[in-house]
């Protein structure tokens, strides 16, 4: 089942030596990253009243088998959880 948050959840991310997420903390629990599956960047909607979107997305699997989509927001320099498949 997939969960999608209308307003993404703030998470704390620890990067590995390769510059990609190695661990992240959400709701007080730490998740280890098993594998980076996909990555992409979004930079758009700069003209809209709602605001410019500039994000680096990462789709990953955690060591306990969850598939997550997280992103780094380049505008506020924070990581967020966008989707969770369990």
């Amino acid at each position, binding site marked *: 089942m997939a969960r999608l948050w209308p307003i993404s959840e703030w998470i704390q991310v620890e990067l590995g030596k390769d510059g990609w997420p190695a661990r992240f903390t959400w709701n007080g629990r730490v998740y280890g990253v098993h594998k980076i599956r996909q990555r992409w*960047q979004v930079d758009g909607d*700069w003209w809209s009243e709602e605001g410019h979107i500039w994000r680096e997305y990462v789709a990953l699997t955690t060591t306990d088998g969850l598939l997550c989509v997280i992103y780094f927001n380049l505008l506020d320099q924070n990581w967020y959880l966008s989707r969770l498949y369990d």
Partner: protein
Amino acid sequence: MTEHYVELHCHSYFTLLDAASAPEALVVRAKELGLPALALTDRDSMAGAVRFWVAAQAAGGLHAILGAEVSVEPLDGDGKAGRLILLVETQQGYANLCRLITHGYLRDGMTAIPTDTDPAWLGKTPPRASWDALNDCRGGLMALTGGRDGLVASSIIERRFDRAVAAAQRLRDVFGSERLWVELQQHYLPDSDRLMRNQMVLASQLGLPVVATNGVHYATRAESRLRDAMIAIDQNITLNEARRSGLLPINANAAMIGADDMARRFVHLPQALHNSVLIAERCKGALDFGAHRLPEFQVPDGRSEFEYLYALCQASLSDRYPRITPAVLKQLTHELIIIEQAGLAGYFLIVWDIVRFSREKGIRCQGRGSAANSIVAYLLGITSIDPLQHHLLFERFLSPDRHTMPDIDIDFAADRREEVIQYVYTKYGREHTGMVCNWVTYHARSALRDLGKVLEFPTPVIDRLSASLETNSATRVADALLEQVEAGNDAVEHPLRLLAMLMRQIDGCPRHLSIHTGGMLITGPPLDQVVPLERATMPGRVVCQWNKDSVEDAGLIKIDLLGLRTLGLVTEALSTIDTPLDIDRLPLDDPAIYMMLQRADTIGTFQVESRAQMQMLPRLAPRVFEDIIIEVAIVRPGPIQGGTVHPYLRRRAGEELVSYAHPLLESALNETLGVLLFQEQAIRMAVLIAGFAPGEADSLRRALSRFGGGELTPALRELGTRFLAGSARNGIDTLSAEASFKQLAGFAGYGLCKSHAASFALIAYQTCWLKHYHPAAFYCALLNQQPMGFYSPEVIIGDMRRHGVNLWPPDINLSDYNYRVEMRNSMPGLRTGLRAVHGMGKEVWERVRVAREASAGVFSGLVDLCKRTRLQRDVVSDLIRAGALDSMGDRRELLWQLGELVYQDEELPFVFPVTEVILTELSELEQMDWEYELLGLSPTGQAMRHYRPALDRAGVLTTQQVKQQRNGRRVRVGGMQVIRQRPPTAKGLMFLSIEDETGLLDVIVLAKLYETYRQLLHEERLLLVEGVVQQGSGATSLMATQMRRLYTG
């Protein structure tokens, strides 16, 4: 690490509406990033190639690689073209790439370019080269498989791996595995990794190497927004719609990046980066700037081109110079030696032949521009100005040390120019002949409209902003918008800021290609091997992808075949005059003509008719032909802004001492009393003071002409240093040398070539002569050549009446299509042509003519007219209201009768029902209203005469009376606005010309007053102006203080 990558896939803004940066900006960015080489690969285009090449040379050390992204027909007929990148390896490859792109546009190749009568003409369709053509043109080219819309990647994205393999195999069949690379890009899109993995598998399977590119569409990230906007503009949708349709890239990763950033994107594929460097090293193709590439001129009797040129010059010597002086022979010899050394005899012969054809066909023509500095051009009849008599300078046109090709511009009677163009096509073949293009670029209005639309500004807001534009510069409008934002209207801040940002970025970007007004390229090798060709919108017309600057910078020779309506005017006027005369041999010293010029009686004449010219003429008071040359050259924005005008006038009036920065300069500047006005003088100055060779001096002039002010560029500083060093060697003191250089730098871009001014002055004199001695013929031709010149037909006719030539109203039985001279009771006049009636096209005229020339002759009445012409009811109604049927009855009665006719499907009953009615007589004002609506004027007289009695009673003066008032007198005058100008150089002032039945008057409206009366000025034609009379040197104007609508009710 930094030198291990070369960008081989890079689009400039010549990939129209899909890329955002100028070729020069891409070069600058590549240098900043430390790239050793850069390829320019615009889509089906080499339009930016010359600019790219020149910029790379100027940048120094950047290896410029020529190439293109070429659209190829689909592999399996599914309708979608694929694209691939082709890079020029050798000169043969360059020619092949031009051929291939041309083929994509013209489909059938040069040998079968459809003519204008060929129904197969496709107009502007998306280019698509065939696989056969690709195979045919592969020599000297290397290929990359392209980006996401490339033949291979697009198939993988669509999960058609089999088709991707088939496409790659087909490309390998064409180019071989030594000349084909699978192109990898990493833009961090959701499917980028998958695409790259599959491309690697494919490359491995087929034994093909891979290469990394970034598919650049803008120099820096900041310009990605402009590209987004351009994509929306191209699709004629908003940005939101473009996003919803998936047309916009999801990020801004197609900027140019350096080797380190590319290495991070291809961390596991260093070979893909390294291959880009290896490919770049193989690319040796260049733009060949040295070759003239002209066709050989077919010379009779086995003579050489030069021998024939020599013979032609000799043959016309005695005709042009009844006294052949040593100076004439010396100059001729000097020029011929240089022409022979430069290998340009054929060029002169080609132009001579075009002029010869034109004259044989009775098409009036005359050379303009710097070519008139040449005695050879004069002897060949290309130009009409004797360079010796007018102290012109051949080196402005051509010199041995000049690096650019000479340029010959010829004006032809506009209505027959096409015959000349067709002659050139026929003579040299369509394979060797094409028109130079003109890139239509974004300026304030187009930028505002297109960007406003994609940003979803409401149409009325765009209209309002557009209507208030007072500059053509999109950047300046952007600055004004930001000022508006700073002034504080939070509600619109965000969209206005975006609009301003995009307007700055889009300023000067090309929007579409059109045909240059007259530039024609003729080449020895087939033209499609020199530059790609496209179809123009005009049927049968082919244009090359380079504009005039690129053609010039590429070292090609173009000939400008320009259309000039004034030459048509002269031809037509001469054909109306009974006594034969050779206007080209008029003595140029007729006092009557100079008196006419001094009183600014020049409406309708060439070059000296504008409001500004007419203000200047009484002040300058031309007395000899050289004065007309100065008049033509001095009333231009440059000299006015550069402060040249007043010193010259003061010196001419003896109010200021004539002085020179150094006595040596006297010989160069004495003709303009020490004021630098002509380009030839600038060249002479550099020769005299700094000892420059003429060609070097011309280089300095050209560099200065491109210099926009401010701090000197390094190249100009270098020239300045050489100038001062040369001056010192000549014994010139530093102060004088610096003053001379400052004078040259100040002269900057505004100077006019004297030979050009002289050529135009000659036509100005001829038109003045026609106006003075044959006014009816002159005005008739002037009206028939409309639209041309500065004034509307209404103003021209007012002027004509004041010169004793009447205007007879249109008459269905007497009028031709055009105006024609008609004497009535020994009074000269013009019969209004039916063309003057609004909506009267040639088709209507043909019906009238055919019926009138039939045995039944002229029309006996309304019914007869309708029966025999079957003209549409509204056309007949307009003819009645315009007065063309006045000989058949009262206009209102005729309209009534027309209403009673059963007039459907062009069938009329033979019996004409007549109902007796008593109609009110048409008043003069009603009649005039109809005439203004349909003719744009009233044949019975100027509108103001109807209001004169009331104006007289109110103490309002005529324009003529104002001219007789003393300086400083406060007056009121009424008139019709006929000209309104607000030049950017005038600091907000508006210049207005009002006309009444006695003449024209110039009104000056100060900036503050303009703001007060802006709406009135734009909405009302009839004005009552109060102001202060300004008299000065024979010119009168009125400084407005108040204005209001002239109440006519």
